[in-house]
């Protein structure tokens, strides 16, 4: 058994089952064999022993029955005897068959066979005796003899046969019993072996079952152990889940809660029992969002930081972020969602703080006076502060999201600016010009830097601008003034130079370059004194300047590189820094070579101009751009009563009654370049007032820059007096003219009225003339119409007479046709009568033919009778028979003819019928025709009468229209005279009208003249 225990469980099981199956097979085989053997022995028993025994029994009874038959035969009558004999023969045959069967069955048993043979022999003898002796004896009536024979030998034979049969039967019965015993024994044997084998199989099965049980128990224990471990593990996970402070929940695919942890219970305020199976989304303020959340998880497999608001039963709301993922079974099918929430309420608090602090920052930013803004990398404004709103003049909403560069006069530069910031990270004092909504421009300096998110990615640009407009203005002025000074210096024709205290040239102007023939670079830094013929004298000169602070008209001789020498007079002065320390010498040379010549000329010409100006009676004045008087002439002195010195440098506007107007005047001149007849009132120091008209124009220097205004005033005081006189005179004239105008007006209106009246008269006359003319035309038309109607009436009369003639002809025709019609009617009547007669006659013919037919028939009969008679007459009647035959044929012919005649007659009668019908219709038509033609005749007669009447009437019309025409002609003549008269009338009226028109025009002209004169 050692080796067995070493086998694997599977092998043990296979072996065990194998043994059991083998045992079962053996048991089945044994059972089958035993059964089949028992069956075989049973069959043998039946086939051999029982059937043999049965046959022997039958044989025996047969023998008995035969004997009975014979006995009956002996006693009964012939019929019964015969019947019995048949029965006997039948039984004999049956017996033979049984015997043969027995021979076949017992062929292998010699002992039985011997007995059977004996039986057979006996039987043969018996049968023979019976059939040969007994039965004939019986039939012969020798009953006694037969009985003797039968009861003697036959009876012995029979007894013997019965004995043998009984013996054989007993033998077979014994054999059968023996066989039965054998079969029983075999059955017992088989049952025993079956039992043994069965028990063995059951035992083996039991052992196997026990073994299996043990094995399975082993497995189950292991499984239990594993389960316990699993449980432990899951309990651990569970405790972890339970221990978690975050609410955990698992949700089924349908959104139902499958499991929750302690934290969930706390968060919702519901017990686990309540939660499980309920809808997940119910516990949130936004169930839809919650549902979307877990559907998202189902779709994508997970979700992160999904924000939801968990609602406690007490109504308290908790902000949570859900992280969830699906969980699957081993097959990978999604079982549900595992969701973990995190309470972010605290985080919210932190966020709020952050917001607060950012709000603080924001307020700081907002409080700033500088425009702050943040720009996205795309250049869009993300945020601005209050100051920006003010600077741009736009509300915050509009600014945010708009393009940063739009708010500057130079958008490209602005764009460059923030791109620079993005590239470098910052920019400093980037100057831009901010445009206000109103169009005002503000100079700003931008300081900007990028700002980043937590990850360090650039989020945008934070820019702060500073308004530099005021500073700019100042700067601009400075620059302007310095440029001005510089330009002054440069513009100077005199060589100017600054020299340091060491005598070195610090700066020169253009003129110096020209004067020396050296470039500025060569000059600067070189020794001042080098460029003069007398260097010592030059050195002395500027030292003198340094000592004295200035020098005037210090004569020096400047040497050009070409060797040309220029006489110059130097004026120089020191210049100092703010601290008052001497920085150097500023020296201006004047070329006195040319000047000397020119000065004289200039002086001359200017004196001339001056004298001209001075000579002018009108006050002339030049005014600077600032409104200061730069120069005046004598006239001005006289007009103002002030000396030239006082006037020059004083404010121009001061000398007028309306200083503002004066100021406007010269500003206008500055703006427009000139002003004409600007009326002002000049005030003399004595208080006298002079009305002046100013004509002013700007004057420019060589470069075209406006230097000031040259204004010439004209005293208009006298002119005003003159104007006064003229006005008085005019007023008087006006009055006269007014009166004249009134008169003219009256005249004009009267003439206008006259004109209107005459015009009306003229138009009336014209209208009358037109009306007369129209009437004349109408009369003419009437005349023509009358003529036409006269003609028409005449035509009608003629036509009527013609029609009457035609109609009379028609009437005659109709009358003749009526006559004809009547004749036709008469003829039709005679035709009808003829046809009727014809019909009657044809009927008579029919009757006649009937008679003829009858005659023919009779002739035929007569002929037959004649033939009969002839036949009877025999030989003598033969000739007569021929005649009779001939008569018969004639009769037949005439009969045939009558048939033909009858047929023809039928046709004739049919034709006559048709003719009668046609005639009847024709006579009806003729009747209608007669009636209609009579009516036509009547109508035509009436038409003739009507036409004659019409002709008469139209003749009368023609006559009356002739008279009418004559009347109309007279009217036409009268109208013609009227027309002439009215035309003349209209003409004269027109003449009057033209005269009135002339008169009216004349008055109009007069009126116009007066008006012109007045104005």
């Amino acid at each position, binding site marked *: 058994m050692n080796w067995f225990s070493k086998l694997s469980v599977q092998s043990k099981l296979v072996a065990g089952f194998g043994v059991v199956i083998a045992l079962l097979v053996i048991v089945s085989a044994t059972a089958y064999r035993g059964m089949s053997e028992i069956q075989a022995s049973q069959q043998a028993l039946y086939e051999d022993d029982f059937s043999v025994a049965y046959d022997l029994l039958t044989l025996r009874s047969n023998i008995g029955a035969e004997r009975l038959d014979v006995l009956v035969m002996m006693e009964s009558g012939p019929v019964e005897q015969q019947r019995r004999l048949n029965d006997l023969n039948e039984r004999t045959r049956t017996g033979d068959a049984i015997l043969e069967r027995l021979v076949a069955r017992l062929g292998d048993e010699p002992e039985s066979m011997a007995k059977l043979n004996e039986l057979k022999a006996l039987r043969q003898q018996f049968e023979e005796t019976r059939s040969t002796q007994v039965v004939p004896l019986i039939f012969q009536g020798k009953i006694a003899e037969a009985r003797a024979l039968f009861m003697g030998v036959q009876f012995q034979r029979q007894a013997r046969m019965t004995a043998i049969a009984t013996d054989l039967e007993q033998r077979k019965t014994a054999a059968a019993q023996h066989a039965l015993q054998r079969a029983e024994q075999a059955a017992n044997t088989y049952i025993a072996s079956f039992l043994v084998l069965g028990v063995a199989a059951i035992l083996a099965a039991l052992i196997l079952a026990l073994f299996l049980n043990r094995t399975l128990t082993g497995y189950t224990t292991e499984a239990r152990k594993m389960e316990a471990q699993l449980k432990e593990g899951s309990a651990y996970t569970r405790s972890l889940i339970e221990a978690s402070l975050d609410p955990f929940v698992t949700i089924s695919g349908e959104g139902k809660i499958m499991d929750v942890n302690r934290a969930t219970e706390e968060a919702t305020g519901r017990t686990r029992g309540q939660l499980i199976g309920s809808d997940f989304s119910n516990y949130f303020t936004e169930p839809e969002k919650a549902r979307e959340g877990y559907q998202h998880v189902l779709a994508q497999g997970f979700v992160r930081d999904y924000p939801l608001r968990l609602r406690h039963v007490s109504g308290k709301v908790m902000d949570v972020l859900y992280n969830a993922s699906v969980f699957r079974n081993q097959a990978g099918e999604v079982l549900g969602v595992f969701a973990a929430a995190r309470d972010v309420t605290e985080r919210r608090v932190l966020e709020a703080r952050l917001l607060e602090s950012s709000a603080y920052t924001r307020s700081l930013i907002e409080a700033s006076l500088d425009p702050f803004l943040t720009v996205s990398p795309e250049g869009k404004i993300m945020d601005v502060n209050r100051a920006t709103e003010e600077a741009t003049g736009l509300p915050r909403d509009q600014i945010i999201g708009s393009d940063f560069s739009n708010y500057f006069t130079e958008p490209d530069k602005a764009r460059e600016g923030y791109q620079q910031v993005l590239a470098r990270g910052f920019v400093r004092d980037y100057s831009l010009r901010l445009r206000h909504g109103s169009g005002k421009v503000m100079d700003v300096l931008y300081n900007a830097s990028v700002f980043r998110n937590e990850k360090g990615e650039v989020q945008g640009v934070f820019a702060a601008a500073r308004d530099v407009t005021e500073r700019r203005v100042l700067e601009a002025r400075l620059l302007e003034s310095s440029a001005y000074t510089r330009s002054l210096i440069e513009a100077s024709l005199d060589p100017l130079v600054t020299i340091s205290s060491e005598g070195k040239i610090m700066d020169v102007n253009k003129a110096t370059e020209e004067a020396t023939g050296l470039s500025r670079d060569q000059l600067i830094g070189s020794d001042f004194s080098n460029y003069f013929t007398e260097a010592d004298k030059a050195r002395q000169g500027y030292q003198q300047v340094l000592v004295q602070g200035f020098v005037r008209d210090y004569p020096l001789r400047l040497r050009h590189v070409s060797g040309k020498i220029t006489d110059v007079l130097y004026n120089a002065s020191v210049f100092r820094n703010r601290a008052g320390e001497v920085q150097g010498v500023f020296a201006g040379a004047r070329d006195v070579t040319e000047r000397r010549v020119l000065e004289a000329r200039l002086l001359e010409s200017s004196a001339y101009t001056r004298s001209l100006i001075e000579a002018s009676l009108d006050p002339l004045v030049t005014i600077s751009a600032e409104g200061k008087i730069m120069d005046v002439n004598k006239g001005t002195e006289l007009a103002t009563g002030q000396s030239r010195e006082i006037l020059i440098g004083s404010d121009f506007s001061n000398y007028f009654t309306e200083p503002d107007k004066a100021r406007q005047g010269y500003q206008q001149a500055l703006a427009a370049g000139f002003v004409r007849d600007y009326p002002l009132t000049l005030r003399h120091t004595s208080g006298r007032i002079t009305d002046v008209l100013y004509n002013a124009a700007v004057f420019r220097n060589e470069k075209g820059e406006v230097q000031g205004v040259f204004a010439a005033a004209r005293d208009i005081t006298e002119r005003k007096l003159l104007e006064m006189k003229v006005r008085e005179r005019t007023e008087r004239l006006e009055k006269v003219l007014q009166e004249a105008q009134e008169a003219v007006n009256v005249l004009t209106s009267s003439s206008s009225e006259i004109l209107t009246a005459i015009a009306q008269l003229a138009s009336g006359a014209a209208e009358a003339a037109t009306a007369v003319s129209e009437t004349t035309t109408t009369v003419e038309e009437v005349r023509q119409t009358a003529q036409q109607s006269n003609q028409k009436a005449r035509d009608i009369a003629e036509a009527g007479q013609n029609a009457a003639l035609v109609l009379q002809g028609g009437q005659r025709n109709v009358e003749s046709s009526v006559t004809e019609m009547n004749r036709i009617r008469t003829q039709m009547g005679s035709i009808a009568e003829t046809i009727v007669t014809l019909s009657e006659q044809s009927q008579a013919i029919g009757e006649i033919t009937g008679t003829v037919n009858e005659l023919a028939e009779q002739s035929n009969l007569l002929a037959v009778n004649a033939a*009969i008679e002839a036949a009877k007459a025999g030989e003598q009647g033969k000739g007569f028979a021929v005649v009779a035959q001939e008569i018969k044929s004639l009769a037949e012919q005439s009969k045939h003819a009558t048939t033909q005649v009858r047929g023809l007659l039928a046709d004739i009668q049919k034709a006559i019928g048709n003719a009668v019908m046609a005639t009847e219709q024709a006579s009806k038509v003729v009747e209608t025709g007669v009636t209609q033609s009579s009516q036509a005749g009547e109508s035509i007669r009436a038409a003739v009468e009507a036409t004659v009447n019409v002709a008469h009437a139209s003749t009368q019309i023609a006559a009356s229209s002739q008279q009418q025409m004559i009347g109309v002609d007279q009217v036409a003549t009268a109208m013609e005279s009227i027309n002439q008269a009215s035309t003349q009338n209209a003409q004269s009226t027109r003449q009057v009208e033209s005269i009135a028109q002339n008169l009216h025009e004349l008055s109009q002209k007069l009126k116009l003249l007066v008006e012109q004169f007045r104005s």
Partner: protein
Amino acid sequence: MTDSGQQKSIDWNAIHKQIAMARQTTEQGWAPTPADKKRILRARAQALAEPIAGPAVAEQSVAVVAFQLAGETYGIELAFVREVYPLKAFTPLPCTPGFVLGIVNVRGQILSVLDLRAFFELPQAGLSELNKVIILRQNDMELGVLADAVLGVQSIPRAEIQPGLPTLTGIREAYLVGVTAQRLVVLDGGRILSDKALVVHEQVET
């Protein structure tokens, strides 16, 4: 107008001519032309000139009076025929069998008339004039037989008469002599005359 047009289309002259011709023929119709006369006489002469096959073979032929009855042609031996007579008026006779039509007066002699159709049990189909009577006679027995038409006397060779058709059974078979090739049924006049069935003995129960 159409009427007058049609009238115009009729050729009156032709009509007049036609009528005249008709009148002429009508007038002439009763006197045949000499040519016609000649032709008729010639035909008659030829007919008369033909030898009569009768006398020499008198024993070999039989003369019969042929007549039509219900669409069939019958013949009765001349020996039994007295004469033929048109049926003019007959008196139906009560208490007689169906085949007895009635009695007729032939020149003062009263004869009974048989309807052979009923007598021969022929189907009473087809139109029949039945206006001729053939009067049979043998010895003292005389009676009339109705016929549709009498065709005349014919001479039939005896050889031509074939025995009656096997289809004819009953009463007809008994009165039949035979049938010729021309489907003329020769009746046995003697037998008809001597038939017992003709002896009428019927009484009307009063």
